[in-house]
Each structure stands twice: as C-alpha cells, then as structure tokens.
C-alpha cells in the first residue's frame, strides 16, 4: 500500500508538472493572438520589455486578453472537473453538467436574476446557483428507483430537463423586450468576450475552494466507483460524500454559467481524454482535468475569436462542435 501511494504521488507530480506547462503554453498563445492583430513578435517584445512598450498594446494584453484567457482557463478547468465528478458519482461515463441540464438550470436562474435587475455578483450568481440545485434535485429525483435502466434513465431525464430548460429560457426571452437581454443569444452559447480581471478574481475566489474540497474526496470517488457496498466497507460515508460533491459541483457550474453562459461538452471531452491516457485514478485525474480542461478551453476560445473574419463566435459553439460528435461516439461504443 505504501509503495502504491508513492507511485501515485510520483504520477501526480509528473502529470501536474507536464499539464501546467501545457496550460501556460496555451495561455501564452491565447495572449499573443487577438482581433487587433499586433503579431506575436510585438507581444513578446512587450512581455520581455526589450523595447519601450506601446501603451495601447499593453492595455490590450493585460486588460483585455489576459482576463479573457484566465477566465477561459478557470471555466474550462471547473467544467471539466464538474464532468469528472458527475461521471464518478452517477457512475455514468456520459454524465456532464450541460448534458444533464444542470447548466440549463443555472442559466434560467441567471436570466431570472438579470430580469429582476440584480447585480452580477452576488445576485445573479445566487439565483443561478438556485437554478442549478433545483435541476440537480429534479434529475436525481427522476432517475432514482430505476436501477435496471439507471444509465439510460439518467441520460433521458437529463435530456428532458435540458429541453425543458431551453423552453423556459426561450419563454423568458420571448416574453421580455428587455434590452439587457440583447446579448442573450450570444451568452447562451457561451461568451467569454467581456471577461474582466474583477470577474476572474470572483471566479477564483469561488472555484479554488471548490477544487480543494473535491480534491479531498479524490480517493473517496475511486472507492465509490467500485460499488456502494465496497465503498461502505472501506469506511466511506456515501450519502455525505454524494451530497457534498454534488452541491460543490453545482456551485462550480453555476458560477461559471452566470459569468460566461452555457459552454457545453467540455466536461465530457476532457475527462474521457485523460481517463484514456492516465487510467481511472481520480487523484491523478483531478489535477489533469483542471489543468488540461483549462488549456482546452483557452484554445477553443482562441479558435472562436480567430476563426471569423468579422466579430467572433461564441466559445460554446466550438466546444459543442468538438464534443457532440464525441458524445455520440461514446454512446455508440458503450451500447453495442
């Protein structure tokens, strides 16, 4: 057992180190490319201060691109982690906050918050959290007690909750002529374009404690994957662990949604990729998902803003274009 622990620790260090480098590289690429051009060379000179810096470029770098890439990294990390936790707790490889409708629920909460004229923080964040908890309860309520069909029941109830949430969102959007909802279509597809340092700071304050809480349960999640009885015999307090993990994850998701809208499938792509590469141990998967998910989101957002000639795409379009086909592939593979 001791030896095993030290092997895991070594892998943890390796994976964390390697993926940190990947994330930093993604952040640097994200910083060097943007709609105003500027070019890599100028950006690097600005960084390294080899020549007197151009104040305009500095504002663009530090006040527009930096908050945006940091926001993308945080959101990507949180959503990937959310996917990983849902997949472990619900023991369903296709579980993901967006697919289960949790993101949709928090979007409804956020829109209600916007319509009530609440402030972005804490008002909208709270209503959004309320929305995600409500959908979580709904999904768990619908899908329990159907042990044989459990896997499909969960996905189906997720699909239904998601459809219902979309309908409620469209209802709210159509019923109101509020100019505050002008940007809503963009926001619904995931929009990182208005990321500010303040926003990033708020997200950090919320997300980092969530990361820590979830990390403390890494080994518990390993045990829970082995089955209820097994986990209980190993001393896991299943109900409590479930409750804490689900609520923490919902909080993470709703903070992300209230700041950046609906970004789907990140929590599917990243955990699957790393499970394939690193095996099933959550003590290694958790940091991998946070760092790798962050890097993935930064790159998706980069594609979203670099691809169109005019303006930009919502980042959620890119993640869905990559993620939805993967979902179908995984579904087909798991149900031969």
């Amino acid at each position: 057992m001791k030896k095993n622990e030290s092997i895991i620790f070594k892998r943890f260090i390796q994976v964390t180190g390697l993926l940190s480098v990947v994330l930093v590289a993604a952040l640097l690429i994200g910083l060097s490319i943007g709609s105003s051009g500027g070019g890599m060379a100028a950006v690097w000179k600005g960084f390294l201060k080899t020549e007197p810096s151009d104040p305009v470029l500095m504002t663009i770098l530090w006040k527009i691109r930096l908050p945006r890439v940091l926001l993308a990294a945080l959101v990507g990390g949180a959503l990937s982690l959310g996917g990983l936790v849902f997949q472990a707790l619900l023991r369903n490889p296709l579980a993901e906050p967006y697919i289960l409708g949790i993101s949709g629920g928090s979007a409804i909460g956020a829109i209600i918050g916007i319509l009530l004229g609440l402030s972005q923080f804490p008002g909208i964040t709270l209503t959004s959290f309320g929305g995600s908890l409500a959908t979580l309860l709904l999904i768990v309520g619908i899908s329990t007690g159907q042990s044989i069909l459990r896997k499909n029941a969960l996905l189906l109830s997720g699909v239904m909750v998601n459809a219902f949430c979309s309908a409620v969102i469209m209802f709210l959007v159509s019923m109101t002529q509020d100019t505050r909802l002008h940007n809503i279509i963009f926001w619904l597809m995931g929009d990182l374009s208005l990321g500010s340092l303040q926003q990033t700071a708020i997200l950090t304050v919320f997300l980092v404690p969530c990361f820590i809480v979830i990390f403390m349960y890494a080994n518990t999640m390993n045990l829970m994957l082995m089955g209820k009885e097994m986990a209980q015999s190993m001393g896991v307090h299943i109900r409590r662990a479930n409750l804490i993990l689900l609520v923490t994850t919902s909080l993470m998701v709703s903070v992300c949604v209230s700041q950046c809208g609906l970004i789907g499938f990140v929590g599917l792509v990243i955990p699957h990729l790393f499970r394939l590469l690193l095996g099933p141990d959550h003590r290694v998967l958790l940091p991998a998902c946070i760092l790798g998910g962050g890097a993935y989101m930064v790159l998706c957002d980069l594609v979203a803003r670099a691809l169109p000639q005019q303006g930009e795409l919502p980042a959620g379009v890119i993640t869905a274009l990559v993620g939805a086909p993967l979902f179908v592939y995984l579904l087909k593979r798991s149900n031969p």
Partner: protein
Amino acid sequence: MIPILSVMASFLMLTSVQAQQHQVRDLLGRDMAVPVNPSRVVALAPNITEIVYALGQAHRLVGATTYSDYPQAAAALPKVGSYVHLDLERVVALNPDLCLAIKDGNPISAVSRLESFNIPVYAVDPRNIKSVMDTIFRIGNLLQADNQAELLVSNMRSRIRAVVERVAQTDHKPKVFFQIGVAPIVSVGTNTFIHELIEMAGAQNLAAGKVVYPRFSMEQVLGMLPDVIIVTSMAREAAFERIRKDWYQWQDLPAVQHERVFVQDSNLFDRPSPRLVDALEILARLVHPEVFED
C-alpha cells in the same frame, strides 16, 4: 510634503495642457473629461456614424461598427464589431481619444470596460426626432462643429415643417400598419420614433399602445383593416417581392385593394439619425400621395 505636492501639481498641469481636456456631462448625466479637440473618435453605433458624417466631422473618425454602411465612405472605416457585441480589443487597438455610445444598444458592461481603460465614452440617447436633434447639438459641440450642427438641425426642421404643412391640407388620416418584423409580425408602439413619424406624416399607427414592439398574428392585422402596410426589411429586392406577395393573398384588405403595401429599407427607419427626415418624407408620400402630386 510641500515640494512633493508642487511637483505633483505641476505634473498635473503639464498633462492637462498636453491633453487639453475639458469636463462635459453626457446625455445620461454622467460627468467625464474629454479632449477639447478629439481626433481619434470611434462611433459605437451606425446612427452615430451617420451623425458624425452629417456634421462633416468624418476626418475625426477612426472606427465604426460592422453595419455602419452610410454614407458609403463609412463602410471603409475599421470595424469594431457590432453595436450590441463590441470587440473591445479592436476599439482599444484604434487608440481612440473619445468613444460615442448609445444608451439603447451598447451594453453597459462593454461601456464600463472601455472606461476602465481610461477611454472616455460619451453616451447619447436618441429615441425620437427631438432627441436626435439634441444628440446632433451635443456631438457637434464635442467635435467643435457647433455651426454645422445648427445648420443641420435647422435644415431638418424646415424639411419637417414642409411635410407637416403639406399633410395638413387633408383631414384624411389613413390607418397604417408598420411592420418591422416578418416572422413573427412585429409592429411599433406609441413610444417609438416610427410612431412619431407616422403621426407627423398625417396617418394613424394601428399598433399605437404601451407595448413598445407589439407582436401580432395575421388574423389581428387582417381584422384591423389597414389602409397602408409598410414593411421594413434588411433584405434585398427578391425578398421584397416575396413579402409583398405574401400580403397580396389577402384581397379583402384595403391596403391590398388599393395596392398600398410598400417595402422600405430598414436602415432608413430604424436608425435615429438625421436621415429620419428622409424617412418622414418617404412615409408622407406613401400615405398621402394625393397631396404630393406635383
């Protein structure tokens, strides 16, 4: 302490002389310092671009939004995203010394981000003919074009007066259904400048009421028996024909019987700019062709 203060004071004086700024209050009542002679202006909405051009101050413009296509020269300006979805990076890259924003359209979050970069954002709120004129005066004042603003507005006023005098020759007030959205059918309520134009043109707006942009079913429109139907669309000729045809299947409508279903360029009717007067003249001719026969 005193030497430090005096150094700071002289530094402040130096920068204020360099930048030559003055305090102004925008149309939303927000105070700010703007350059006395702004030379790098970004217009954050198409109607603002039109106003700046109409004031003859286009040489100050360094950027505009995606759909700023009037006058034609404006299309060549560097673009900074659409007015509801501004690309902040492009705005900042143009190094503007003044941005001109509209209250209804530019998101407040984007405006406050720009202000956090020390770019003054002067907001205007043109929502009817009077406030378009106010906006023209204010922007004229900001861009050292008071005389041009005076000229432009007095020209608008005399053209409006000419239209109003013309339509006063008749007591007949045709019922107009003004359609700004095709699917669903959307019209304009009382609190819009299109309503104002309809009234000035000597007609009545069938959709008048508290709701700003009311929706209608086809049934409701048929029941109101409009004498004139005006549809504004961004679409081009082919689509214009299709929209007209759609209405012509209802042969009982007075507007159809008298062939008075018209499709107009939406840019003319949905931008609170000096061209609202063009829109008024067109509208008056469409609803009262009899008094314009000459």
